[in-house]
Every structure is written in C-alpha cells, then in structure tokens.
C-alpha cells in the first residue's frame, strides 16, 4: 500500500498524513487529532482538489474517519480499563491511600484476567516498584503499566484444552489420573515450583479422597464451572 502511495504525485503530504496517523495513535491523545484535521483541511483545499482523483479522496476520507473512530473507541476503552484497574486496586488498598502491599500485586493482576508466569510477574513488579523498594506499590505507577498490559492483551489465560493436554503429558501411561505423589513431584520440582501452601491448597480440591488420586478431567471441568 505504501509503495503505491509513494508512486503518486504530492506524496509528501500523504506521507505526512500517515506520519500524523501513527503519531497520535501511539500517543492515544485526542488533542493530536486536531493536527490530523488541519492536515485534512489542507488536503481538501479547493486549489488542490483537481490534482487528486475522487478514488484517492474517498480512500483518505475513510482512513481519516477510521482514525477518528479508533481514537475515540480507544479513549473509551482506556477510560474503562482505568476504572476497572482502579476498582481492583482499591479493594486491596486497606489504608485508602492509593498504595497496596507488593505481595498482593500478583493477585490484583490476575484478578483482572491476566495470567503472567512467576517470572513475568517479577518483571512487572520491578516496573512498578519505587527506585528504592518500600514494600508498597503506588497506584500512580501501577496504572499506566497495567493499562498497557490490558491494551496489548498480554498474558492471556490458558485455554481449557491446553490445560488438559498438559495433564495428559504428565500422565504418560494415559490412565486418566495422576497419583498424589506424582502431582506433588511435578508441581514442586518442575517449572516454577509450588510452595508447600500452594501444593496443599491444590491437593485439597483436586484429590479424590476415595482413590487418593487426581482425575484431572473432572477436576478441570469443576474449576471451569466455578470460574464462570
């Protein structure tokens, strides 16, 4: 598409259009749209009109409208994300002074629908912490970082079938279940190991007391129902 444009005459202002488009989209700022508008007015200056074909005019018009629409809906989306993040944050802000304990950040991020690994969580915390860590995270630092995470749709949750396949991998003999000892071994020795508390919590819900094993298909089904 770009090559096509470059081949046309008067390309300099088409390029500057695209520049503006990219510029204010990145900034997500409404005030920059006015820049775009001014450029557009320059475009439809009557003297210039005869130079462009109607086809190109409609193309540019559509692009302009699409930009505006993207900017508007982006603004709305961002505003809604801000409020959602604020709500989740406030629930853990016990002192009502816009800070939360750093140990609760993982819970907040996950409650907003993201599933970072422990390593990814550590990186995020490093981003929102103060230069000299105080043990508390301030809302002002948390908000922009979390907004980016939500906009970029980072750390998407694991789909149900991926989870099922993961269990099936560990269940090499395809019995349909894992023994208690096997699950403990995998969860506490592989990957990002569980703490003892996490292990106990998972076992309390996952283990079928009669067979003392984990029928993972039923377990997953139960958890999925619980979440919805």
């Amino acid at each position: 598409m770009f090559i096509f444009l470059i081949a046309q005459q008067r390309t300099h202002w088409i390029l500057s259009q695209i520049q503006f488009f990219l510029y204010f989209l990145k900034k997500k700022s409404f005030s920059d749209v006015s820049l775009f508008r001014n450029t557009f007015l320059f475009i439809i200056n009557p003297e210039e009109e005869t130079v462009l074909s109607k086809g190109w005019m409609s193309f540019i018009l559509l692009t302009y409208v699409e930009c505006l629409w993207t900017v508007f809906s982006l603004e709305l989306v961002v505003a809604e994300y801000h409020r959602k993040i604020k709500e989740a944050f406030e629930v853990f802000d016990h002192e009502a002074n816009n800070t939360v304990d750093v140990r609760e950040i993982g819970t907040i991020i996950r409650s907003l629908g993201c599933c970072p690994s422990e390593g990814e969580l550590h990186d995020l915390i490093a981003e929102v912490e103060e230069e000299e860590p105080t043990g508390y995270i301030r809302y002002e630092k948390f908000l922009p970082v979390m907004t980016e995470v939500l906009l970029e749709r980072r750390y998407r949750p694991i789909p149900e079938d991926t989870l099922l396949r993961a269990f099936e991998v560990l269940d090499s003999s395809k019995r349909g279940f894992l023994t208690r000892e096997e699950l403990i071994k995998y969860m506490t020795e592989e990957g990002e190991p569980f703490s003892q508390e996490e292990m106990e919590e998972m076992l309390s819900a996952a283990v079928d007391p009669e067979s003392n094993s984990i029928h993972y298909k039923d377990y997953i089904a139960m958890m999925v129902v619980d979440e919805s």
Partner: protein
Amino acid sequence: MSTHDLEDMGCGTSSSTKDRKSEKALKAALVIQNWYRGYSARLKARQRYALTIFQSIEYADEQGQLQLSNFFSFMLENYTQIHEKDPELVARLFGRTLQDSKDRQEYVSFVDVPDSYNGPRLQFPLTFTDIDLLVEAFKQQQILHAHYVLEVLFETKRVLKQMPNFTQVKTSPTKEITICDRGKHSMEILMILFVSFLVYPNDLHLNRGNHEDFMMNLRYGFTKEILHKYKLHGKKILQILEDVYTWLPIGTIIDNEILVIHGGISESTDLNLLHRIERHKMKSVLMPPISIDEDQDTDLKKTKTGANVVPREGKTNESPSEQLPKHEWEQVIDILWSDPRGKRGCYPNTSRGGGCYFGPDITSKILNKFQLKMLIRSHECKPEGYEICHDGKVVTVFSASNYYEEGSNRGAYIKLCCDMTPRFFQYQVTRATCLRPLYQRVNTMESSAIRILKERMLSRKTDLIRAFQLQDRSKSGKLSMGQWAFSMENTLGLNLPWRSLSPHLVTTDKNGNINYMSTFQDIHIQKPVKEAQSTLIETLYRYRSDLQIIFNVIDSDHSGLISMEEFRAMWKLFNSHYSIHIEDFQVDELAERMDLNKDGSIDFNEFLKAFYVVHKLEKLNKSDGQSP
C-alpha cells in the same frame, strides 16, 4: 532442577528423547502452575470482594445509627407533645435506669432450676471446674439455665462495680498477657467470659466494646437470641445484662505503657477525664444526652420522670442526673467507635456514624501526652486477624475468625512479655480441620455477600430505578457499564468494585451493555398484606431494623406488643424526621390489618418479620437479613 539429568548418564541414543520428554514435562508443569496460580489469585480476589461487601454494608448500617440517634434526640426535643398524649410513654422511654432498683434476691429466688434440667450446674463461689463444665456443655449445644445466668450476671455486676474505669495491669517474667476480642455476640461466649472473670478476677480483664450496648444488641439480634433461648426469663436477663454492660471498664493500661481499648482515640481524648467519669451512666451510643446547661437539668428531670420513683438514696452517691454530660459521653463514644487511618488529622467517622478517624499524628500526640507507648484495639475485622499501623504504635487485633462467613478472615490474639514486643498468633477455625477446600468456602462466602447486596439493592429499588432511568435517555432498558456503576455507587453509597461484581448482579447483552432491571427480576419483597402499596412495603423493609429498635424501646417490658396509639405516635414522628412520604392513613390501614387479634395491640416483631425478601432462584425464604 530436574532429576532427569541423572538418568541421562550413559545412555547416548535415548538421551535426546529423554530431553524432549523432560522438556515437555517442564512445559506441562509450567502450564498447570501458571493456570493454578491464576485461578488461586482470582479465588482470593473473590474472597476479598465478598469481604468488602460485608464490611461496606456493616459500616453503612452503623451509619444508619447516626440517623437513628438523631431521631431519639428529635423525640426528646418533642417530648412535650408526646408527654401530653402519653406520659407513660415518655417515662418508659427516658426512665430506663429505674430498673436498677430491682433487688438480686427478688430475681434469682423466683427462678427455680427443675430437677429435670440436665445442663451444666454451677457452684458458687465459682472455680475453674465450673469453667470446664461450661465449655464442655456448650460444645454439646446445651443451654445454661436462666437461674445460673442471672446469678453470674449479678455477681459480675457486683465485682465490676468495684473496678475503676481503667484497669491497671502489670506484666512479669512469669506472666504473659493475651489480648483478644469477643467477636460476634453469643450468649455462650459471654457466659464463659463472665464465669472465667469471676474465677480469675485479677487475671482476666474485660473492656467495654461498642456492641456492649443494649441498643446495638437490639439491632444486631443478640436481644432476639436471648429472648429466643430464654422464653420465660429472657427479659430479666436482658435487663441485668444491660446494667452489666455499663459497668464494664472502659479500658486497660498495661505497665503504664500500653493502652488497650476497643475502638480508638480522637484528638480531644483526655484520659485523666475518663479516669474520673461515672462510666455506668453511659447507656448507649444511640441515646446522646441532651445538651442543656445544669440549671435546667433538674427541672427537666422532674417533668420527665413525672409520677415515677425518685432515684435510690443512700446506696450510692449518684447525682440526680441519669446521664453523662455531653462532652464526657462524646469521649466515651470516641474510645468505643474510632478507627485509625493513614491520613493525618482527626475527622468524623462517617462510615460508622460515631467516633472519628484518627491519623498517625493524633496517635503520637495522645500517646506522648499520657506517656504511653502503644495502643492496642479491636473493632475492625482484618483478613489476617491483626494489623499494625501508625509506625507500630497502633495494633488492631480481631479474634473472631470467619466473622462474616466461613472463610472470611483469620482470628488472632497477642501475647505480651515483659520486654514488650508483642507476638501474634493466628488461627482460623476451619483451617485446622480443613474440611472444605478453599473454593467451596469462597463460594459460600461469595453467595452470601451477593445475597445481602441484592437485598440492599431491593430496599432502595425505587431510588435505583429512578437513577437508572435518568441516565437511560432512550428508554432502552440498557446502560453502559460506566453509567450503571456510577448510579449504583451514588444511590447506595457503597464504595464497591461494581465492574467486577456486575456478572453476579445483572445480565449483560452482546455489546457489553447492562440490562439494569435484570437484578429485580428474581427477587422481591414478600408482601405481608397483598393490598399494600409497593413503596410502602419498600420503605418499611428498608427501615425495618430502625423500626425494630424504636419499637423495642417503646416496649420496655419486652412483651413484644405495642398499642395502636403508640404505633401511630411513633410512626408520625418517624415519618417527619426521616422525611418519608407515606400517608398516615396508609400506615394506619396496614397496622389495622396487622392487628390480627383486633385487640388494639400489634405484635411488632411479627409485623417486621413479615417483610422478608424472596429470592426466586434460591430455596431460602427466611431472611431478616441482618448480620447476626
């Protein structure tokens, strides 16, 4: 990291398969761990949301008390009008203390313990065997006979009367001090505490809390619990209990360094004053003293008490006034109701409707002023059972685990040694036995919280619908998430995470817009009388706990009945003070229908109980709704 490395040695060709296998296992483990951590975090967040709901509603209820308290002041100011119509009523309302004059013998001797009683029998003077006996009996769900209850209460009152407003305690190398909080009302806990106190009066120290207040008992159902458990003698027990409350010390001071009180402090807290006041005159947070000067005091007493008995002479040095002066009353309220906050300064505690919020600067100032080092208090439910704030100077301890619902919070207690560093011990009643997994406990807690939230919404249905319709210009029945959340927060006055809670409360369409009427589709208030108007029903439902308190106050002999005139008089006052737009004749009609015996008296408990919420999708149909 992985034990597979060891197995790889010496087996060249299969090592790559083993590597691949172990890599797959690693990836699989990562997936499961990642998913589980996400799930577990969301569970914890849901738990926290439910807790926030419980707390907001509890605090909002307490805020409603301020209005009720104002109503009583309003009633007092208008007493001349009531007085002309019904001097009896006034005397009953404002002459509560006259029941003090009942003699111990008179009560206890009338209550016999039948031979068939197989509950615990206490021997006076009490010893530690009685404590064991009680604990064992209560574990088996037995009820202590009224005779013993009354004996214990009288004895407790006698001992408490001799104690100063602040108990002074010293630690020693051999003695440890444990600090905890009573938690939810329960007759059994109270009995164990009082009996233990009587057995070890120098080792167990009790402080008064904000729920050691007969008005609060009315509101939160403790009165009901007692009247239910002790059908014959419940009223007597209540009367003595109310007395015992007023004699509980205000606080404890440990080693002249640590102050232990229930709520908190304010910038005007004056411990020297508090040491001197007559604490038993502090009846209830809901009955503030009239702010008139001393000269008018005696005249007012005369007209108020009318034909009733003059206060006892000779037994005590009590002044004719039955109440504390206003500034002293306020001091006690601050002690019992305040909460610490991070913000500096001292400002009114609007969530509770009494006491204040005090900042770290206030703490430093007051502690320094009275040469104290630490403040230990309770009053707020903390998820971990305790919390330290204000730079280590203020400690909150909350001992009732699962306060709102199973799984809501841990309980904790503190042990102090003579080197003064406190040690915290946490517990949770269900955790030790671990009968139910976390997700089930969270589900229970969550559905309980959502239910009371829906009932709250129902009690404000008219206001909510009006707010929604204001925003819904196109009358589509839909609002955006932002609009809905805004209306909810403004109308209900509850600061809750509405966006996260919306899936439980309303239905949404494909575009993410909220069908705001969907909440009201599966719940409604059961109408006790079919012909009654919805707005009347809704108003009565909304104010039912306030009305219950007011009626209980009128019905000072706890008979459960009030006369039609009393009902009408009270309703008129209530109507005007709360600015409710219900016509008198509507209430009259309703009352007449509720007077089933047609004998001119209304069983108001039945009347108010008739207003319960029906949740169509749930089997439960009994919900007076209040926190127990």
